[in-house]
């Protein structure tokens, strides 16, 4: 890894375990001969906003798949709130408050937009068959979930689609739904995989504000994969750069932007685009 991390560590070193909500220790994964993630380590401090950037195929999505438990690590440990999670089922990880979204937005097409959101709410008594006879509790919970879903939809301008099948939404709208759905789960750590790609810039700005508010008011922590560097520079207080399955740089956004290794590996052409 490039030394940049230590260079900027004066501000960023949250290695004191009390503050690390997520601690990724030397994780790797391999599928046959492919090794999308190789010996990756980093810590995420509580209430921070970190972006992960890197060229296509760098292993960013694979990293999220490992953290969320959808794929299992071949080696290494993942500690979430002082608990090793690398070997437990993804639904258990989600129940602990670690929620992720999917690149390309996975929505349930044959549920309505509102239903997509409502299914994300945690602790629903109606999710268990044993709750079948608790009619009152179920109804109250549903009413609250619905109200919250409508608030989320209002936030992203999808209110009029609430009772339509989610399958009719456009690509950009699906992204909004996916993001809103993750928020419905009230995560303490949210992993966002390119949530803004294909969303119109005005709305992106608004969403960034929403995320900022959540960070402040609900003490949420964010890990974001994003290609648009302007967005990254705006929103993050730390940037991790990946290439070929490894972290090649890790530091403050400004420092990353000037970093030679990063420029060579990734930014080169993009920097020109922005300027």
């Amino acid at each position: 890894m490039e030394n940049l991390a230590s260079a900027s560590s004066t501000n960023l070193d949250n290695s004191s375990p009390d503050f690390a909500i997520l601690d990724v220790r030397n994780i790797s994964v391999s599928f046959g001969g492919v090794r999308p993630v190789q010996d990756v380590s980093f810590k995420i401090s509580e209430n921070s906003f970190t972006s992960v950037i890197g060229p296509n195929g760098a292993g960013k999505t694979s990293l999220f798949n490992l953290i969320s438990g959808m794929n299992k690590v071949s080696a290494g440990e993942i500690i979430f709130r002082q608990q090793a999670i690398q070997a437990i089922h993804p639904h258990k990880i989600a129940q602990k408050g670690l929620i992720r979204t999917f690149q390309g937005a996975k929505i349930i097409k044959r549920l309505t937009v509102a239903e997509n959101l409502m299914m994300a709410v945690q602790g629903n008594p109606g999710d268990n068959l044993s709750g079948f006879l608790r009619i009152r509790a179920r109804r109250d919970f549903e009413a609250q979930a619905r109200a919250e879903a409508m608030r989320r939809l209002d936030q992203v301008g999808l209110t009029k689609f609430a009772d339509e099948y989610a399958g009719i939404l456009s690509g950009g709208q699906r992204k909004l739904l996916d993001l809103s759905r993750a928020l419905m789960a009230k995560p303490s750590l949210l992993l966002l995989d390119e949530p803004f790609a294909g969303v119109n810039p005005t709305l992106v700005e608004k969403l960034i504000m929403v995320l900022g508010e959540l960070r402040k008011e609900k003490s949420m922590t964010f890990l974001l994969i994003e290609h648009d560097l302007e967005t990254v520079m705006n929103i993050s207080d730390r940037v991790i750069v990946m290439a070929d399955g490894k972290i090649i740089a890790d530091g403050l956004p400004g420092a990353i932007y000037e970093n030679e290794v990063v420029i060579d590996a990734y930014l080169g052409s993009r920097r020109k685009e922005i300027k």
Partner: protein
Amino acid sequence: MDAFVQPGFWVFVLALAGIYGIFALGLQIQYGVGGIMNFGHVGMMAVSGYTIAVLVIKYQWSFWWAAFVGVVLAALLGALLGLTTLRLSGDYFAIASIAFAEITRYWILNTDSVTGGTQGTLAIPNPLGFGGYTNQPDLILTWISDRLYPIVGDEASRDMSMIFIVWPFLFLFIWIASKLQQTSWARVLRATREDDDVPRSLGKNVFRFRLQTLVIGSVFGGIAGVFWALQFALLAPEDFLRIVTFYGWMILILAGATRVKGLIIASIFFGFLYGSTRFLEFWPLSLLSSPERAYLRVFLIGFVIILLMLKRPQGLFGKRQEMVLE
């Protein structure tokens, strides 16, 4: 063609429709809500039917206890099927489920001491020696027949009494199923029929939801077996061939898999199709021998399934939109 205007024919159709309606309701929950393609559903009906027959005939159990045990065993069979094969992806599960039902049938076929074996028929006897039960159920059927007699006269029959027993249950089960399908449990289940990752990433144990669904569906399959045993009183392994599962599927496809309400009409249509093949005696079908004509039923039902899949994949009552979303 006279047969179709005989009330007795329609009474038989309705009795059969009620039983197969309950049977298909099990598939509806599994496939229509959970997207689980169970092609071995007949196994659940066979297990409960045979359990009842064996316990009543060989061990002189009361019908009700035998029925209870039969349904419990059907549920356990569903759980066993799920625990062993539900982790397979959809198509592979479908194949495994066929194998599972076949194993059940072969077991029945080869366990002579318990089930009657290849010679097969287990007759649940009444005091006269055939076709009935010695205890409560028969009394209930007779009681109903006696009440019907003043109204319908000689048309009062065992079949007609069966209608009055089966249909209230069918309505009750459809009501329960539709309530169940309005819960958030069913919402998660509907999500799982499209995608595992989303519900998992939101904290839902997809396997648990599927397993529960399979067991609930199997309970309905088992209950259908109870009424089957009551209706036919004669059980032979060839009653529980694979095709029976597809009778259920035909009803389901006809009804529109995602809607419970179409199930009633679809069941009656199936009952009609099933019952009427007995009467296909007119030319040129009269050239066929009677076992050959029995096969016509299978052809006919296969044909209807194919036609539906081509022309109306959403069923007669389903929403097309739900089928075409990408």
